[in-house]
């Protein structure tokens, strides 16, 4: 440092001060300590986070909120409600009916895990739980479709109701696939995008098929 060669400290300026490291009161955890807050605050914060993600799925834009703050509450709620709504289908024997509760659960979660593993093995940069979170949240349009289908079926079966259900399920299937692709496609290597998108398409297609073929008693 050539400019400092001629700097010297004169003897009559006292060098004084305090050399202590402040302990405790300024630790970075203080701002995020949530142990003392009322339970209602904790629950509302998580609910708001989940709700925000639902809104993101409804209007899929390139936002990082869904990816950054992943949680699995939303997917769990959606999966359970979808599996519950798929119960009560008609069957002459146990073997011929629609999917059981456990089967829906396994298909959704195991399918999501397999797709996530697939995208990671192909060289994707997204983390495991982020991908599970996105895939789970994007089941929401299909859950809405299931609700609509059950309402339409309350009005009666028949060709017209089938066509309405087909259109609704088809539209929601497209929405789900596009929403999840919008979130996940960026993290994939460019020459393998189709290899990653196809399993997602298959996953939502299977769920749509389960919804469309639901026939009540």
């Amino acid at each position: 440092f050539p400019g400092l060669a001629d700097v010297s400290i004169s003897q009559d300026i006292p060098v004084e001060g305090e050399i202590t490291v402040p302990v405790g009161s300024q630790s970075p955890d203080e701002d995020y300590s949530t142990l003392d807050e009322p339970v209602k605050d904790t629950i509302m914060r998580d609910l708001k986070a989940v709700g925000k993600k639902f809104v993101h799925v409804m209007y899929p834009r390139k936002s990082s909120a869904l990816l950054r703050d992943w949680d699995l509450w939303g997917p769990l709620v959606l999966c359970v409600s979808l599996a519950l709504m798929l119960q009560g289908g008609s069957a002459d024997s146990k073997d011929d009916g629609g999917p059981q509760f456990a089967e829906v659960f396994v298909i959704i979660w195991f399918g999501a895990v397999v797709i996530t593993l697939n995208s990671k093995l192909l060289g994707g940069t997204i983390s495991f739980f982020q991908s599970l979170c996105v895939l789970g949240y994007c089941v929401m349009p299909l859950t809405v479709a299931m609700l609509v289908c059950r309402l339409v079926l309350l009005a009666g079966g028949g060709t017209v109701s089938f066509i309405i259900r087909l259109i609704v399920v088809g539209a929601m299937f497209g929405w789900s696939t596009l929403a999840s692709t919008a979130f996940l496609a960026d993290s994939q290597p460019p020459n393998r995008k189709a290899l990653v998108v196809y399993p997602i398409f298959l996953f939502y297609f299977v769920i749509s098929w389960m919804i469309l073929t639901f026939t009540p008693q």
Partner: protein
Amino acid sequence: IACLVMYLFAEFDDAANLLAANPDATTISIDEPVEIPKSQHSRLQEPGREEDDELLGTDDSDKTELLAGQKKSAPFWTFEYYQTFFDVDTYQVLDRIKGSVFPVPGKNFVRLYIRSNPDLYGPFWICATLVFAIAVSGNLSNFFIHLGKPTYHYVPEFRKVSIAATTIYAYAWLVPLALWGFLMWRNSKVMNIVSYSFLEIVCVYGYSLFIYIPTAILWIIPQKVVRWVLMVFSLCLSGSVLVMTFWPAVRDDNRRIAVATVAAILLLHALLSVGCLAYFFDAPELDIPPPIIPAHNGTTVITKSQ
């Protein structure tokens, strides 16, 4: 000798292409061309093996052939080890599917398309698609066949999905295991030119099942003749891929064992497709008594079901 010289020039050409594409690459000698010296030996002994030239091919669809031997070096408990089995691009997967659907006579699927880069993406997702294609098409076809019958009530038959999944995944993974074990055993007794790794066999089986996906969708058509024609057609295509792959591996063996092996491969393949057709798709003409519909003027008209 001229064959040998031309063959060596072809190999140098490949190496030159590769070095031009990637000048920093170090070329090392690795396992896959180990089969080449053996084939050179046999070429000197039996000049009738020119097809091995074509089998090795100079297709540019996979430029990483010479470097392929050094990739599987991660220990098997790390994630990177399994990533080496998914080292394919979209166009490579599409190429392999194309190669399984349009088998070129004389060209070996493994040599031409897999080329020491077997992937697990194709076999796994083709099997998954096939499972759902068969289950969905079977359900749809049963629905159309029984449509209009008064006693019929539609059921989704979801149980059949798990049965389809078990069958197809067992076929696509256990049969290659058995075949690989058998080939390894024969390899220890008879020196073969061509030997395949387990993953290459899984790859061939997986990609050969692709033709059954459009076949399963077309099986919705409720005509027996159409279904059997489709089945024979797809059996020929995928069977030919399998035969052309495995015949070079067994032809050095005892003639009877070679023929028996290839026959067993084809038989299992046929059994799979016949079984799927029989179990998931109801027969188009059912022998239920035709419904009797009273017509307006009081006489009864018996309508024959199609």
